[in-house]
């Protein structure tokens, strides 16, 4: 047996609980009986005012497993797959090669090919920032921020198909049914905010992404951990707004009567704490109606700020508004925020199969200024250090033409670029590389799991210990085998 000393390093299971205890705690549908042991004698009402409900709340803040750098994540999802060689992965060697047929292995929606016709990067690159990072002219504003950004040029994913590719980037699996990254984060850390969901998803005006709600599903975890759709316009959350005829005083009257009758019902069942919990959710939802709209009240922002995010411009207003909302949510402690750039199908997102120039001009044009504003704004408010920004799509794009004529590029999961900023990331760093035409990662290839591991680690979660017992197995976001964060990316 071991001596005490060597045992100091013993790693317990997640949150210091054993597998079996954890199974019970997260397990399913056991109803009232199972609950009693978790409840304090004083009951819910006695403790709710202190902010520590006696009833076990799955989103209660939990201590991180390791020291953390970031508190929140903003995942800027460039849906459709931006072309890395037209954005941040500088390929000077391709200049002059346009139209040349080269032998290159590609795999996209058009299947496997072994040769193709080069489409030169369609934008000029120039060096930006102290670090001298080469950035395409698609991103004049973002170019200002490169000293805060770490670029990973050697990302790889398992699927060059939108459906399974989105699932992989969001949940680490090619199939639906597993929790999204945001669900894992909220499961691991809980949510410190009082009035907002811990995992927020904001979609583009063009529509939702392929797979719809599967992209932010909590899979086999309770729905409490699923992403919540948050809207800048209309009712921010589903059913948050009262039906038109129902005034706030009417609702108050309803809640008062409801409360009194529920209290009589509960008095006859004093040990049933779930009744008290349900009563409390009604008061909470009433307060949320006043307080959630406060998040979307951009009237509180200065004109300069709004202008910085591009709210004065039709092109940038949609994404800019959502970036600004993301900052306001970070300020309020929302743990994980995902913004989609682009939605729907075809050129309504970064999926540039046809006219690359029109497509990328549109989507970069809509996001460049807002993202730069978000980075600068967070920085000036001292929030960038504790907010991890992730930028990228489900894959990149091929160096060659998809069709005989035209500039369109098919999908490419053999190599693509993602970047991170803030949250303990090494600004100005460039990590890994694709080959000279960007067809595949050749130097330090990183699987999507490495990216997920990095996000978890920066938040103070151990990617190899954050587990959820399901289907007879300790399920992990990064899978069964140990996965390391991308060390080069961390400051």
């Amino acid at each position, binding site marked *: 047996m071991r001596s005490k000393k060597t045992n100091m390093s013993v790693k317990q299971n997640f949150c210091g609980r054993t597998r079996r205890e954890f199974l019970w705690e997260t397990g399913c549908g*056991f109803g009232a009986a199972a*609950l009693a042991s978790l409840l304090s004698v004083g009951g819910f009402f006695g403790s709710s005012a202190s902010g520590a409900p006696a009833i076990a709340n799955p989103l209660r803040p939990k201590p991180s497993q390791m020291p953390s750098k970031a508190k929140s994540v903003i995942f800027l999802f460039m849906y459709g797959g931006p072309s890395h060689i037209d954005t941040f992965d500088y390929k000077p060697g391709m200049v002059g090669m346009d139209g040349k047929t080269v032998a290159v292995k590609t795999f996209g929606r058009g299947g496997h090919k072994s040769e193709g016709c080069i489409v030169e990067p369609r934008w000029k690159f120039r060096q930006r920032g102290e670090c001298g990072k080469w950035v395409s002219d698609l991103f004049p504003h973002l170019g200002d921020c490169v000293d805060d950004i770490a670029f990973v040029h050697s990302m790889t994913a398992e699927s060059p198909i939108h459906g399974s590719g989105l699932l992989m980037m969001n949940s680490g699996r090619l199939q639906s049914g597993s929790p999204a990254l945001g669900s894992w984060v909220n499961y691991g850390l809980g949510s410190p905010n009082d009035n907002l969901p811990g995992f927020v998803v904001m979609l583009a005006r063009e529509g939702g992404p392929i797979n719809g709600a599967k992209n932010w599903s909590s899979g086999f975890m309770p729905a409490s951990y699923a992403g919540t759709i948050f809207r800048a316009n209309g009712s921010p959350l589903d059913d948050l707004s009262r039906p038109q005829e129902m005034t706030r005083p009417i609702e108050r009257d309803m809640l008062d009567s409801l409360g009194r009758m529920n209290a009589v019902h509960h008095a006859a069942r004093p040990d049933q704490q779930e009744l008290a919990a349900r009563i409390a959710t009604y008061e909470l939802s009433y307060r949320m109606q006043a307080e959630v709209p406060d998040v979307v009240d951009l009237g509180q922002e200065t004109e300069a700020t709004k202008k910085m995010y591009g709210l004065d411009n039709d092109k940038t207003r949609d994404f800019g508004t959502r970036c600004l909302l993301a900052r306001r949510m970070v300020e309020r402690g929302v743990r994980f925020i995902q913004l989609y750039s682009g939605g729907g199908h075809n050129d309504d997102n970064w999926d540039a199969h046809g006219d690359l120039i029109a497509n990328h001009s549109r989507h970069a044009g809509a996001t460049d200024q807002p993202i730069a504003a978000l980075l600068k704004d967070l920085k000036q408010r001292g929030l960038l250090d504790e907010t991890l920004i992730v930028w990228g799509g489900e894959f990149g794009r091929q160096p060659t033409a998809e069709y005989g004529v035209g500039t369109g590029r098919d999908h490419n999961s053999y190599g693509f670029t993602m970047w991170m900023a803030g949250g303990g990331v090494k600004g100005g760093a460039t990590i890994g590389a694709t080959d000279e035409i960007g067809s595949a990662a050749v130097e330090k290839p990183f699987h999507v799991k490495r990216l997920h591991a990095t996000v978890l680690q920066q938040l103070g979660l151990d990617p190899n210990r954050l587990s959820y017992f399901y289907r007879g197995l300790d399920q992990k976001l990064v899978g069964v085998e140990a996965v390391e964060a991308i060390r080069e990316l961390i400051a």
Partner: protein
Amino acid sequence: MLSQVRFAIFALIAGAVSIGRAQAAEPSVAFQRDIKPLLARRCFSCHGPNKHEGGLRLDKPEGAVAELDSGKHAIVPKNVDESELVARVTAADESERMPPEGKALTPAEVDALKRWIASGAKYEKHWAFVPPERHAPPEVTNKDWAQNPIDAFVLANLEQNGMEAAPPADRRTLARRAYFGVTGLPPTNEQLQAFLDDASDDAWPRLVDSLLASSHFGEQWARHWLDLVRFAETNSFERDGLKPNAWKYRDYVIRSFNDDKPYDQFVREQLAGDELEHVTDDSMIATGYYRLGTWDDEPADPLQARFDDFDDVVSTTSQVFLGLTVGCARCHDHKIDPIPQTDYYGLLAFFADITPYADVSERDPDRFSQWDMSKPEDRAHRAELHSSEDKIGKEMHAIEEVGVARMSAGEQEIARTPDRSRLIQEKLQQHLNESEWAQWQDSSKRFSAVQEEIKKLPPPEAALALAKCNPRPEETHILMRGNAHVPGDVVEPHFPAICGDEAPKISLAAADAHSSGRRRVLADWMVSPRNILTARVIVNRVWQHYFGRGLVRTANNFGELGTPPTHPELLDYLALWLVDHNWQLKPLHRLILTSNAYRMSDAGNSQALATDPTNDLLWRFDMRRLSAEEIHDAALVASGEFNPKMFGQGYYPKLAQEVLATQSRPGNGWGKSPRDDRSRRSIYMHVKRSLLPPLLTAFDFPDVDATCEARFVTTQPAQALALLHGDFLNDQASKLATRVEKEAGSDLKAQIAESIRLGLDRPASDEEIAEGLDFLNRLTSQCGQKSTEALKYWCLTVLNLNEFVYLD
């Protein structure tokens, strides 16, 4: 901004509690019950399957008695003093004491370890892997209470722990409990009154019989089954395409439960309905079971995706029917349960004749997954026409592609979208030479002619099913680390080794046979008397849905990582009882429903709460929240809108624009259903994987991509918002108000009483009348509402009460 109250989503999660067995009369110690969980919790992380620090591993008997690095022995059977383990867990010196982290073992735990070592330190088999034993119902003191064998087992346990059973619940509570439990619906006021007025001795068993005879029984219990078999009507992934006729499987399950089809037959039909002596339409529909899972129509790695689909079948089948989680053994031997990788692939081999859901190149499930049930001659004719349609279609496509290749990139892009046909109409001719164009036109004419012919046929009557199988499937290999591209040894179909049965001999099927015959062998084995798991697993599920949890809480996992049964003898008793009763489930339901255990009150009792706060010993009934579907359906019953129409194609509940906007093509795959369709039970809602109705998911409708053994029960503000602000409840409240006005007239007191009666199945109290009067008065005088509007809000309030949502 930050309020004191959290945005909290309060899940009701289970606490880990084990009952103080030390109080029990018998001083015996059981390895599985008392020792293994202790070792697993406190020792295995360093001395278990993964790490053997100091040369010790305690998960295997050989390891426990082996010589340690120190030369000592952790366990010397029958010799407590020589056992180093005892010395170390009791060491006074903290640096010596094990385990090094956390508190020292309790005296009771140490005592159990000593007694176990003294009795020989036997590693007994996990309970579920030992065949069920016949136990006579035990003797109890309170014989009057224990007429039913269930009660004898329950009470014996309680008496051993010095506890009593709770008194019976009142008759109104009981009636509601049974109506919801058996049918998923509340009683109507007339039904309830009839029972309350029935003073005869057998009023209860007669109520039970009438409920079990109700067609709503099948609907309620089918919903439980649909959770298990990951029922959904679409494929997930980008297109989330429709699975035609999946609803027929749902109807099959409802009918099977209503007809009290013996469970062994139910199992056989789903697993091998295409391989039975008498293949019927119903038994073919049952094989739709295999087709309910997700399916990627555009897999990045087709071979791996094929094995992902096999995994769905193997994992779902083993969990649903056997209560075994074999999924881990896809990549490696199971770490805890004795399930080697060969067993996983041995099971997979039984399913090897299953074709993919559809051929990826066509994305059309017709050939593999749609079974034509029409008359043979119609079937042949249709098949012929479809085959020429295919052939001509391919000709046309080939010519079109010639033209498309000559178009601009933008147009080529359009050719991949639903706008292709318009593009072809408008532009194709310009990009073809004359002879190509003539050829295309000719094909196009023939194509239209065939389509006309097809239209004249009677509509096909098809089922989602195993329409096509491979009678002589390829060999099944073990896949190294689960990787489909790295095949290892060949395995033959065989049963999991823990079940102790020999591998079956399956003769090679004829080359032109429909299937390999392997699934029939598996199905027969599952329901054979020697199977130790199947009957236990299903009786546990029936128990679970009446009592809120199974005797084994982890209903899909009877393995060592599951929770052991709270009443193991009762579980075995019921399993054998079911088999003795021809596997018919209705008698089992009746046995449970007529027990005193089912009829106990759910009232608390401070002494019992202190002894057994989680009610593991079943000293009372557990209050429960209604499921999403029950809330939905009960609101329809209260409002009078309920449409009892059974069966048929699913309906589309109304979804808000904002919800549809989460789709990449808003509204795609979602139709509009007329109001009376939308007033049907929720089991008839269309289930689209990427667009589950928020009203249902807010109340814990499960993720439908994998089997769900038990639903979560969360309490969160989204539920309050859905019931207060959502269209559905507001609509039902309006209808309820109209009904109340109609039935109670204009007298406000009568209206309030009627709303309570319709919503909660009971007379209103004086306080509630006063509350209601005050409410209506406030709304009309202070908020300026018309009396009808005020009544609507009152009705909405009633439908939001805890009493509406929780069942005693």
